[in-house]
């Protein structure tokens, strides 16, 4: 139990360090950094390296944004295995739908609940 917390902390931290390096050293904007990490996630899944990382690190690999790219690719590949090339299209959002739907839903609820802050200080 504790050991998975520790590995989640370390692996999650390392992925964020990669993101920080993109931002500070390569001077990427946050949007560019996140897009690069998502692409990285899906490439890793293409080589079948991301699933073992999830087995090893648990939330340390599923919480960072790379897991979004990974689950998209994973869904596409799983479906492509069954139905061939067309499966690549149909399987895309098979595995991951909670991230985006939660973001949209809570975005609207947040816009509804929270007034603008009076002072931004």
């Amino acid at each position, binding site marked *: 139990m504790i*050991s998975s917390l520790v590995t989640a902390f370390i692996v999650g931290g390392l992925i964020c360090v990669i993101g920080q390096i993109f931002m500070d050293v390569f001077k990427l904007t946050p949007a560019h950094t996140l897009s690069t990490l998502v692409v990285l996630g899906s490439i890793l899944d293409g080589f079948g390296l991301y699933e073992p990382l999830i087995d090893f690190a648990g939330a340390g690999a599923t919480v960072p944004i790379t897991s979004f790219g990974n689950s998209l690719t994973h869904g596409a590949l799983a479906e492509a295995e069954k139905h061939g090339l067309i499966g690549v299209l149909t399987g895309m959002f098979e595995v991951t739908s909670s991230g985006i739907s939660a973001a949209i839903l809570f975005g609207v609820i947040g816009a509804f609940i929270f007034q603008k802050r009076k002072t931004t200080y």
Partner: protein
Amino acid sequence: MKKSVIVFLMVLLLGACSNEKEKVIFPSDNSTSLKPIMQKQDSIYGYKSVINEEDILVAIYINRFDRFNKTKIEKKITKQIEKQFPEKKVLVTGDQKIMWEVESIIEKKLKQKELKKSIEKIKLLSKEET
């Protein structure tokens, strides 16, 4: 600030080593042939298994750094057990949830009918994809 961070990281690493977990086979009457297979496995440090007429369900504790090839370990052990018990359906998994379910079965000491039902439930659970 720097010293406290280094100490924090050290504590984290200490927590990562795995301790010995008990090895349980339930019901223990026909466990003679399963035990030797499980002894040979070096990458697991404990297991809990449930056996009835046509099902063998083994939940394993995998060493932290061996979890990278968790799927390979599961396949390997499944193949070995199937070779030993050709007529039984075998399910080996390192999933924490299944481990908890197996523990609850062993504690409750279920009898034949409920045992079968809960094993089916677990098998359904582990096949579920999304």
